[in-house]
């Protein structure tokens, strides 16, 4: 089991080799059973100040939200359109 990470726009540049089609699969270590979205971001090299929106399984969450095996976590900088 692992966590699927999806990145948007400029955040992709912070993770070398990120493939937008497949996203990034991260397997938490056993001792990371209480991993948060913020810790996960740091682990792949994305500073918190770059993140405006976090979605866990399609629902808005915060950096403090717990993430678990099998989750899909998406990070976005400030984006807007219309």
């Amino acid at each position, binding site marked *: 089991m692992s966590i699927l990470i999806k990145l*948007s*726009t400029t955040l992709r540049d912070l993770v070398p080799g990120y493939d*937008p089609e497949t996203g990034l699969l991260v397997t938490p270590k056993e001792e990371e059973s209480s991993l948060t979205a913020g810790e996960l971001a740091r682990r792949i090299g994305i500073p918190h100040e770059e993140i405006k*929106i976090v979605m866990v399984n*399609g629902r*808005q969450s915060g950096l403090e939200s717990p993430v678990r095996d099998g989750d899909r976590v998406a990070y976005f900088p400030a*984006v*807007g*359109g*219309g």
Partner: protein
Amino acid sequence: MFRFLRVNMATKSCVFEDIPEEYAGLGGRALTSTIVAREVNPICTPLGPHNKLVFAPGLLGATNSPNSNRISVGCKSPLTEGIKESNSGGQPGGHLAKLGIMAIIVEDMATEGEWWQLEISKDSAKLVPSTVAGLNNFDAVAKLVEQYGKDCSYVTIGRAGEFKLTAASIAFTDRELRPQRHAGRGGVGAVMGSKGLKAIIINPEGGKNHALVDEEGFKAASKRFAKALTSHPVTGKGLAEYGTAVLVNILHEAGGLPTRNFTCGQFEHHEAVSGERMNQLTKERGGEGAVAHGCMSGCIIRCSGIFPDENGKFKSKWPEYETLWCFGPHSNIDDLDLICTFDHMCDDIGVDTIDVGVAVGVAMAGGGIPLGDGKAVMEAMKGISEGTPLGRIIGCGTATTGRVFGVRRVPCVKGQSLPAYDPRAVKGVGVTYATTPMGADHTAGYAVTANILNCGGYVDPLKKEGQIELSRNLQIATASVDSVGLCLFTAFAILDIPDALAAIVDMLNAKYGWKLTGDDVVTLGQRILSTEIDFNRRAGITEAADHLPDFFSDEPVAPHNTTFDITPEELQTTFNWIKK
């Protein structure tokens, strides 16, 4: 120096007139809606002689304020049968403002089959027989440029407008004289066509920025507003880099990207039609492509990009998110180049990308076009210009198409198609779709901000709580922004940076010598909405029309499996300042 230009298509009279007292202090949408509400009989036939077509730049037009040269177009809509304000970027708004023309009011109709063009310069205006009848927008403008030169700006309709199709748009040239900024919604192009008016040529020579009551005060406030725009990550950088197409991936992630005619909230090929992909291809192909392109003078947001083909030649402007969505996920097409071709065809033929793109997906749902068949869509699109039966059907928009093909899910409110946010997963914008007097329109109260983008606070998009208040406040604010002539995208900065609104109020006060406060902006927005709603009531559109089609409350949409559960009774509390 401020005046109206009143044009009568039957008598060919073009008269500059002083601005009547009752219209003083109004601009943009406030002005078009007030003129339409006062001067147009609400029960008139929209494509008949009693309708009027009004063009108005905003209150901050022809100033050094950033992003303030938009133009509003107003009339009774042949699509919704209610009042319409549709606004656009491009150069004509700024040019009209510089000439001191705060509104053009086009009345009556020319003899059927005759086409005229309106020449406007500093001290004269006249109607002459059109030299470009029968041409679509790009050919028409190219020919007009040969005739009138590169310093003018141009307002045209394509063949869809000539055919009076109810999704026809009005095109406004951008800084490179491309007719690809449009007043798209509500069939305003059909109204222009019904009048026999093919083109407007605006020669800005001798025009100038408006006099300011307090020059220093204006300069300081304008600087503060520019700072707010450049310092906000969306208006300062994001929109320039990715255009509005940046929304494809985030709406997919949020489960609010309507797919295959609103049967699912996610599209498996979202990445192929995303803003990120568009940015990447634009940069890789280079040539005439451009990232960070402004559609009008004074724009510092620069969202409008130019998409190049494989050889680096101009293919289209960057399609907006809504265009990518309706010709893409909604129609089960994942070919970005093809979608850009459709975008360009819409600009050229002169139709609303939303109402026609949504019509394409609805035709697919009804078997009129094979699902996801790009070639068939291409033929149907060509058919709009050729006047084929299928072309005329989709050119009349989603409601007509749904009716013709017997479709159960026709995503329209008041006859106008829903844009690119599933109201079951982005409920705030669902309230706006249902209640705005314009017919389904995301820009009328863009609750996606707080629902999805974490801008201007946060309201859970999947719950009903807080959505009505959110939509109400945004609809009020938007009516004001549309009246000032500001690009709606300035709202991202306005919602997050308190000084941005204060700076706008200070600019208005410094320009006109007014003493407005922030509260007056709210009052103005409410007044505009009240005027528009009153027109609709007199046109026979009651609050019973303020609801979404029932499939949104019947059918849960994946992945969140939510329905639109805000009841019609609750929706009727949106405009709570209006006495019933």
